């Protein structure tokens, strides 16, 4: 019996190896003229960041459908294929290798969190695959590989945020609560830099919390209350911000205002936070009800494509990634290197939803300060 089992075991081993190699031998189609242009997207489809993956894929698909409806690019349709990286670092880097192995993909829109991007960027870089990074804005991303293109830089976002709080709301004593992740941490370093630049501004307190921690913020808030800040700046995901606001509501912070970097501008945040969000300021890169007609057009398109969701910063960033790729295709780029060269040609990007100046693959964008006024998002009034 023992011997039969070991035979079975070896057979399983060999079969598993072949099966693995089998599934990797997709047909290597060579590039004919009217073959479709394949773009891959590696975002979280499952796991607790799945919501952001959905925003990215829906928004990018809008641009793809728009281009294909108009006959594609000199006859060639664009195909967007979405892969799931579960928001996991090792998975993101494996996926990067899998996408690069397949010759048909000539560009990738990939990675939500900066850690997934930092893990996959070297692989995309080695294979010369242009990587459009929708949301992550960590400073190291463009250093790790020269094929990564950002839609936002944390320095840029933090400056808009700081200016909104200091000049807009006009508060002198500020406090900073941040999720202990890459954007939260780099935000703190930048904030300390800005505060040194301005003598009249004082950073009275800075507290962080870990992801997956129990959502009890009372000790953190009572510590901040002692420092009596005029404005509390928060850099975290919408779920934590809603919790912080609700628990702060029960601790009567008086006229202290709360503000966020833009990550929480979405319908989900409004429904979750409810009345606790009244008077909450957000410095976002995209505002659906912005009178600009390009923004209105995109909000309408996204509203239909996502059956009733309002477009937000994540949707607009993914849409811009796809638009820049379409621009590169229109320049006649059909291979990875050509797409990269076409992208390098962009210095001023005038997209549908925003305009940004690109200096070595990092954009500078104007922030749009908004606030929650009687339950709805509105342009900020101070």
């Amino acid at each position, binding site marked *: 019996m023992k011997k039969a089992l070991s035979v079975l075991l070896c057979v399983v081993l060999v079969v598993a190896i072949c099966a693995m190699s089998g599934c990797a031998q997709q047909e290597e189609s060579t590039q004919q003229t009217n073959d479709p242009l394949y773009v891959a997207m590696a975002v979280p489809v499952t796991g607790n960041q799945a919501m952001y993956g959905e925003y990215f894929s829906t928004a990018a698909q809008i641009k793809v459908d728009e281009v294909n409806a108009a006959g594609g690019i000199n006859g060639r349709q664009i195909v967007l294929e979405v892969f799931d990286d579960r928001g996991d670092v090792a998975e993101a880097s494996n996926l990067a290798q899998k996408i690069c192995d397949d010759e048909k993909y000539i560009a990738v829109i990939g990675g939500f969190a900066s850690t997934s991007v930092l893990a996959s960027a070297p692989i995309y870089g080695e294979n010369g695959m242009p990587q459009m990074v929708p949301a992550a804005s960590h400073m190291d991303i463009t250093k790790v590989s020269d094929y990564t293109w950002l839609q936002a830089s944390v320095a840029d976002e933090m400056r808009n945020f700081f200016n909104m709080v200091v000049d807009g709301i006009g508060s002198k004593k500020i406090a900073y609560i941040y999720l202990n992740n890459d954007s939260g941490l780099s935000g703190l370093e930048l904030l300390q830099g800005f505060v040194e630049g301005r003598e009249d501004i004082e950073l009275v307190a800075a507290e962080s919390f*870990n992801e997956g921690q129990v959502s009890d913020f009372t000790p953190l808030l009572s510590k901040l209350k002692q420092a009596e800040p005029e404005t509390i700046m928060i850099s975290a995901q919408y779920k934590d911000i809603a919790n912080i606001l609700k628990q702060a509501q029960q601790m009567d912070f008086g006229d202290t205002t709360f503000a966020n970097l833009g990550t929480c501008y979405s319908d989900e945040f409004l429904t979750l936070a409810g009345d606790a969000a009244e008077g909450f300021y957000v410095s976002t890169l995209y505002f659906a009800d912005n009178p600009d007609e390009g923004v209105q057009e995109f909000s309408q398109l996204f509203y239909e494509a996502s059956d009733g969701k309002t477009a937000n910063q994540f949707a607009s960033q993914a849409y811009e990634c796809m638009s820049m790729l379409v621009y590169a295709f229109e320049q006649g780029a059909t291979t990875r290197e050509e797409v990269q060269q076409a992208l390098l040609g962009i210095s001023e990007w005038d997209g549908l939803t925003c305009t940004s100046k690109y200096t070595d693959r990092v954009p500078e964008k104007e922030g749009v300060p908004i606030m929650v006024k009687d339950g709805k998002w509105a342009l900020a009034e101070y």
Partner: protein
Amino acid sequence: MKIKSNRIFRKLLFCIMACVLISLPLLGLSNFVMRLAVFVWIYILLATSLNFTSGVAGQVSLGHAAFFGIGAYVSALLSLKLELHFLICLALAAAAAGVSGWLVALPAMRLSGGYLAIVTLGFGQIVYIVLLNWIDLTRGPMGLVGIPSPVLFGIEFRKPQSYYYIALFFCVAVLLLFKNYIGSRAGRNLMAIRDDETAAAAMGVDIYKEKVKAFAISSAIAGIAGSLYAHFMLFIDPSKFVGDESTAILSMVVLGGLGSMKGSIAAALVLTALPELLRGFSRYRMLIYGILLVAMMITKAVDWSRYSWYDRMQQWIQRVVQAINRKKGGWKNGAA
């Protein structure tokens, strides 16, 4: 005649396997599959080392990923900050993980069963939180970027095809170490501890010292796996070394059968390849993974010989084995 053919047959099978594994990178498989193969070797190191404490010695640990993390971070920091050679970093990483394993085991090995499992679980969480919050050493959540690939005899092992051989080498070395160690007196002592601590003490086995030593060895090997992981991924961050990773490794060990090294190896292969094979079902992938996990545990439990098709399959395998022996038997007749 029967025992002799059995050993020959097994040796034959072993050689075939060895050739396939050594020549795998030369078969022109895609980079992606080779990356998976490297991960399989790393997980084999983790599964067999956890099996050494949990299976052979019977002391279950739910914090194995902590030593995986310590190995990865020590190796990465040494190579980043002090630019030490890869092999030195790996050795120091294994030593660091081994020593921390020893320090944890000193108090923890006085506990047993559920309590030991929970203390190791607690230790795993402590290591994760320290890695996440000790910003000026580990850069916390921003992780360590740009870890250098190993350079041996002038060749840079960066591509999965070449790195495969480093992982293969260390894995085979560790498996041989385990085979000799478990086959020897020390291995028997550990198994004695697993079966009956009182009797083992009566037979002169220093229970406490052996358990602590086993735990230290197993954490050192997890440290090696960590170092191999760091120098292959070139970027590490704390999220890889959380509690779920320890439970994933433990499910490999239990699936392969506690105490059986071959089982751990097979389970490591299957459970690393599985999520990739299921990639097609994107939204349902993790659901199927969960279902398979439960199904595998239940199928191991059910007594399959009651079903007729299982017996027929077995007889078929026996007939195949006999056929091979008879053909070879003629040639070996003189010596049988």
